[in-house]
């Protein structure tokens, strides 16, 4: 997962990681560990416990900070979702009577592995979020970010205050209006025109790819589960059969296949994770475009207001000031937006490259392993 974004966390002045986490029922408690040489922090090394909602709070405050309107705010980590393994665990409990002990144990192991995988994934996704922030020249200096890292009390009190102030207003607005606004605005800058076209199109494509990749992964998991049942039944067949040895080798080969199935799904998970992460990142880039489009709209409105004021010969200085202010804001957004989007593209290409290479190499490695192991099983099977 670390490879999804490029290597973060190499600037020694601010190093963040999540060394461990606890899962209590629905809640995951992350331990956020910081090592820093910056004087803005009280201590050089410290850890705090944080919940998922704290991360969301941090993300939202960053989004709603005017000064960061021209930046791509790293996407918020998704909520820890143990729904799938939990449901499976429940089904497994119900079906326990129909399975052999061996089968049940294997299924349980498989489920535990899945649970662990979800857990690992959520830790990493939260970690990457913080590391994106710490490696950003501007965002790493954010006051709320510092509070998040340092404040050794429960953040939930502070969170509630923040919610009252902003009410999540901006976020809701963005969700419903951005497509219309972005596509509606007449673009003067070629760069942004291209980016707009590209990002809108790319977003819908990558969203689709993510969904399809997820379906592939699920189907692979189902097959791995089927192999558990098959190999378990083969084992019990061999229990009272004179062909015991044969079935043993068969079932060992089949369980190889099961492992293969799980591994293959892990590969796809890599692909799915890559796509999902960048889908969210592109949404963040789109949000930037939206903010810029709104600034442009504000600027255009301020122009109209100025013209009106000039016509009426009333409140001209205020209108001029307002127009200047809007222009400055828009220019600032455009300048920083350009930088952000350019570096984003570079980051994205590098991450895709790394992930695709790793995925291909792992696929090859695992296929090689099973294509040599299986003939051995065939041989043992035949000569037994």
């Amino acid at each position, binding site marked *: 997962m670390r490879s999804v974004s490029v290597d973060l966390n190499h600037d020694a002045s601010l190093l963040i990681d999540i060394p461990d986490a606890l899962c209590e029922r629905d809640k995951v408690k992350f331990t956020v560990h910081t090592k820093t040489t910056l004087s803005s922090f009280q201590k050089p090394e410290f850890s705090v416990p944080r919940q998922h909602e704290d991360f969301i709070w941090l993300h939202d405050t960053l989004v709603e900070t005017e000064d960061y309107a021209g930046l791509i705010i790293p996407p918020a980590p998704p909520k820890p979702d143990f729904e799938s393994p939990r449901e499976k665990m429940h089904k497994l409990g119900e079906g326990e009577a129909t399975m052999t002990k061996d089968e049940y144990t294997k299924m349980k192991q498989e489920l535990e592995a899945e649970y662990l995988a979800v857990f690992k994934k959520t830790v990493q996704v939260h970690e990457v979020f913080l590391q994106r922030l710490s490696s950003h020249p501007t965002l790493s200096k954010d006051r709320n970010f510092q509070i998040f890292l340092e404040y050794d009390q429960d953040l939930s009190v502070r969170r509630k205050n923040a919610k009252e102030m902003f009410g999540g207003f901006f976020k809701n607005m963005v969700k419903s209006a951005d497509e219309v606004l972005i596509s509606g605005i007449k673009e003067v800058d070629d760069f942004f025109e*291209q980016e707009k076209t*590209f990002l809108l*199109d*790319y977003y819908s*494509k*990558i969203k*689709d*790819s993510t969904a*399809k*990749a997820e*379906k*592939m992964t*699920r*189907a*692979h998991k*189902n*097959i791995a589960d*089927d*192999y558990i*049942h*098959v190999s378990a*039944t*083969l084992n*019990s*067949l061999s229990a*009272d*059969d*004179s*062909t015991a040895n*044969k079935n043993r080798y*068969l079932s060992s*080969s089949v369980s190889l*296949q099961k492992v*293969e199935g799980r591994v293959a799904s892990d590969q796809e998970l890599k692909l799915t994770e890559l796509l999902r992460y960048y889908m969210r990142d592109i949404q963040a880039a789109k949000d930037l475009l939206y903010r810029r489009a709104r600034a442009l709209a504000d600027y255009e409105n301020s122009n109209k207001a100025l013209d009106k004021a000039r016509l009426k010969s009333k409140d001209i200085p205020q209108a001029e000031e307002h127009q200047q202010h809007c222009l400055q804001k828009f220019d600032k957004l455009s300048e920083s937006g350009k930088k952000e989007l350019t570096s984003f*593209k570079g980051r994205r*290409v590098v991450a*895709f*490259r790394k992930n*695709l*290479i790793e995925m*291909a*190499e792992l*696929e*090859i490695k695992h*296929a*090689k392993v*099973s*294509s*040599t192991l*299986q*003939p051995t*099983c*065939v*041989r043992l*099977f*035949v000569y037994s």
Partner: protein
Amino acid sequence: LLTDKSGPASLPAEDISANSNGPKQDSLFDDDPEDLFAEATEEVSLDSPEREVLLSDGPSPAITPITPPTSVITPKTCSDPFLLTLYSCFLKIEEEEGGDSFDMHISVSDPEKVGDGMNAYMAYKVTTKTSMSLFKTDEFSVKRRFSDFLGLHSKLASKYLHIGYIVPPAPEKSIVGMTKVKVGKEDQSSNEFVEKRRSALERYLMRTVKHPILLKDPDVLQFLESSELPRAVSTQALSSAGLLRMVNKAADAVNKMTIKMNESDAWFEEKQQHFENLDVQLRKLHASVESLVCHRKELSVNTAQFAKSAAMLGNSEDHTALSRALSQLAEVEEKIDQLHQDQANADFYLFSELLGDYVRLITAVKGVFDHRMKTWQKWQDSQLLLQKKREAEAKLQFTNKPDKLQQAKDEIKELEGKVQQGERDFEQISKTIRKEVSRFEKERVKDFKMIIIKYLESLVQTQQQLIKYWDAFLPEAKAIS
């Protein structure tokens, strides 16, 4: 003269039981010189070079009991040195034993729709290749329809089941599947249905002729050889397999209620338990494999969808090298989808259908055990009746009724004959079942072994293909800059 011919290596010692319900049976193969399996050892017959040619013969599949619709690894297509060694070992084994000891191959091919509408039916070409003197020529073909197969089975069942022979069940009837074909729906599912049925009919015939007794049955010979066959009408209501199942179920129920057989032969008790257990396990396995087939098909569909989506993503990507890589990824996934489909076919045709066959076969085996019980019951009944008659005769001795006495004596004589016959029948069916079960088990082991090897090979082939595809993709991914 009872010769103690030691059985083949694979036959477990306990098959020859010391305490049986009939006379001592030291040799199971004595009175059947035509038993082709007397010398059978752990032979495995992989694709011989001869069959390779047949495999590549267009849509008509090779004359093996189960053939996957796609290509199997042959020495030609396989470059893996280990697998090649494996093949050469097998060919040597085959040479040493003079090849496949069963010199008869039947293929069912060229399904052809005859007629229109609801009266339409599928005609299949049944080709027999053999050098056995039992037949007039080396190779001959006839056209048969599904109901002909059912008719053959019902005749064989009525002749042989009740004396203890395990008659292979005919393939299942399918009203839904057949209707689609009749109505003329030329889509993938009806093609799959026809192929599934064709394959099942082929396996059915091969199993039937592999049985040394059934092979010589005139109905079987007529089925294979004669160009015209009287239409089998009794199959319309129910398929024979369905009928058999119904009868067996009823018999089961009755047996469990009334027949408390004095089983003094542990072999039978143990075997019955064994088959009960096997039944449960095979059904379970079959269900799991069917689920596997379903999920693999799902994976194939999902992979194809993802491939399309990745292609579109590649088109949308503005970085040239990454765009190309994504398009390549889409192509790789498309190829992998085809791999999944092929694997699903292998899962199905090799594994799933075999299991289905054996689930039905086990039902036939259980039926045969039930017949033995009924035979025993019949014998016991006549013994009881004889007993009664003897008692009655004894009483009549003291009365002065010479006519009645003579009648009683006559009846007793008749009954004594019946009892003897009953005992002989019971011994015979017990003996036959022992032989049949041993043959069945050997065939089962052989069948499964061969299929499993083929299946494992298909898995290996999939892995090797995957390596090729990802190997080709890797440089594209590395070229992104």
